[in-house]
């Protein structure tokens, strides 16, 4: 691990340990914005970690920013850190100034589209976007769509736009945002903006799933070593050992796939690597959560135990920004159309 990574690890882990206790996760699910935690992250530059220095970033490499995101997922942090990083990186890529504070992105569902127009008041955005993550809690949203035949990203205030708020399985808000000729604070062309939004989102969710998977493996190992049944820790039973070995395989594979995607996406998301990562981490999320719960038995099924903060996130994130099937199909169609002989050069990168 690099020295910068090591420092970052210590810093973010300290913040999460100090500012993200169980009560905070519960109050966040009840709808309270975890202000102190957000401010602590802002202070050390984590919320702007994915931005280039020229756009107000903290001079942190993208890989290290993604590492911080992964740790936040490990700790089950109830904040739109991924969305803020994502919106900032795309706005910066288009040359739009990135505002302070938490940011969200819209639209996140493939069927939703926003329309852009030039009115007397200036450029505006109209339309509805469903299940916008933290759409009711973020002051600004990055919106993406088509404007006069070009793909653009814009910055808009969410005030007055938020409608009914649903929750994902982790209790994180997913809001309906409705815009009706809402003025854009700024906008600029960004080629392939919609596809990039989907791929960036899938990349960040993959990283988050890798972090949450690490946590459920650790929790499962600890529980299996502590829980005594039939006169010995259940970790001593071969059936449990083999389940945990399978879980470790999923965690290791998810981690490797997410890392590979991050490394390939330092400038912009790499379609192939992101498809692989979201497919693989999503599969590991489902299979891994199943094993972790089985190992924890009834204890892990309670609200009291901490396991659900990770598993409910895994069960949510695997379906956001395209589920496994979505990314697998894209991969499959790409391979089929290029033909069998193109597969090996694609895998080896040469």
């Amino acid at each position, binding site marked *: 691990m690099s020295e910068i990574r090591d420092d970052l690890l210590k810093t973010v882990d300290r913040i999460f340990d100090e500012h993200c206790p169980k009560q905070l996760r519960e109050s966040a699910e009840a709808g309270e914005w975890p202000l102190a935690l957000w401010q602590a992250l802002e202070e050390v530059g984590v919320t702007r970690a994915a931005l280039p220095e020229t756009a107000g970033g903290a001079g942190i490499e993208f890989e290290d920013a993604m590492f911080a995101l992964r740790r936040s997922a490990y700790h089950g942090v109830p904040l739109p850190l991924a969305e803020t990083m994502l919106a900032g990186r795309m706005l910066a890529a288009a040359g739009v100034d990135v505002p302070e504070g938490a940011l969200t992105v819209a639209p996140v569902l493939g069927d939703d589209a926003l329309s852009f127009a030039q009115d007397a008041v200036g450029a505006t955005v109209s339309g509805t976007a469903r299940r916008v993550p933290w759409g009711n809690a973020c002051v600004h949203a990055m919106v993406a769509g088509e404007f006069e035949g070009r793909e653009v990203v814009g910055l808009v205030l969410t005030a007055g736009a938020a409608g009914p708020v649903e929750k994902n399985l982790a209790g994180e808000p997913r809001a309906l945002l409705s815009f009706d000729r809402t003025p854009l604070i700024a906008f600029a062309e960004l080629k392939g903006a919609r596809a990039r939004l989907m791929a960036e989102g899938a990349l960040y969710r993959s990283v988050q799933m890798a972090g949450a998977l690490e946590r459920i493996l650790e929790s499962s190992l600890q529980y299996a070593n502590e829980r005594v049944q039939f006169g010995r820790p259940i970790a001593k039973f071969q059936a449990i050992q083999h389940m*945990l070995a399978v879980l470790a395989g999923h965690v290791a594979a998810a981690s490797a796939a997410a890392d590979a995607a991050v490394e390939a996406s330092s400038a912009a998301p790499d379609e192939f690597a992101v498809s692989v990562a979201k497919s693989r981490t999503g599969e590991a999320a489902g299979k891994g959560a199943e094993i972790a719960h089985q190992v924890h038995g009834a204890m892990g099924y309670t609200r009291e135990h901490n396991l659900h903060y990770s598993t409910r996130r895994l069960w949510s994130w695997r379906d956001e920004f395209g589920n496994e099937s979505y990314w697998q199909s894209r991969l499959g169609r790409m391979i089929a159309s290029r033909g069998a002989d193109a597969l090996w050069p694609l895998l080896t990168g040469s």
Partner: protein
Amino acid sequence: MHEFRFDPVQMPAAAEALRHEVRAFVAAEVASGAFTPSRNSWSSFDADFSRKCGERGYIGMRWPKQYGGHERSALERYVVTEEMLAGGAPVGAHWVADRQSGHQILRYGSERAKRTILPEIAAGRCFFSIGMSEPDSGSDLAAARTRATKVEGGWKITGTKVWTSGAHRTNYLIALARTAPKEEDRHAGMTQFIVDLSHPGVSVRPIYNLYGGHDFNEVVFDEFFVADDMVMGEPGMGWKLVTGELAFERSGPDRFLSTYQLLLESIRAIGPAPDARSASELGRFVAHLATLRRMSTSVAGMLERGAQPAVEAALVKDIGTAFEREIPETFRQLIPTEPTLGEGASYAELLGMTILRAPGFTIRGGTREILRGMIARGLGLR
């Protein structure tokens, strides 16, 4: 807790140049009719092909030049290996010697063993088998009953080895034998010997596999003499050597590319415009394959740096062999085919052969259950 890390590996420029050289060589061999990719794997024995590999410097790549090696890096060797497997090249004859036996001889063999055997392996003229398992000792290798007793100038071995792939065609095997009575530490008192299969006192009998193929053998030693300088390391070091050897056996691309030719033929059979289910299943396999390759190259990088990633290697093999076995199970439903006995001349035959070989993938080189036990130990559960 053991932290599993699969850090990225930057393939050196030399490795990428080598990749294209090997790819062109394999393509030229296919074009000349020397072999048909879909009929081959790393268990296909083809001495002519091995000699060609030896001439080109693709065997013993990491060994010193003085023993016929080429002083290349672990990553260069990895690239050659994966290109051969992806191209369906019949590398089975030299596979064991190149992957593990030669490496062990280099580390633990006598000067005479290194001088006489390694250059022959590197030239693609000398092949090895593995002499570990016995009729009553499979996963529990320490239960081996084959005994070696000290005699003037060497040892006499008596006992039986089984599942000895290729022993009817290879030149040597490395036999694990008990050289001291069992003590409390049942791993003590074991020794490995280099056995020349052309010498008297050894008999090789075929054990046909479930589809009637002859790969396995039973190898019986009767007072078989092995000279002192064909002992690997010191007497009593056998267990340490065996476990070290298995680490090399576990994390390579041979642990997830055994059914790659079926994957390729399935892509061809599905065609350029797959239906929704075929597209997602195909994409899933590609996602798994890309991830496995990342993990496997990462382990190669760790070996290059002198680390001993035994648990990581076990993880790669456990996930990799499960992946290999899923490929026929999925495509048989996507491309409705009645699998057919044969050599792989049609899709039905390739599918049939793959189904019949598949049970071996999760048994050879340490069963799935043994590997999961190793992983559990790495996780601090044992």
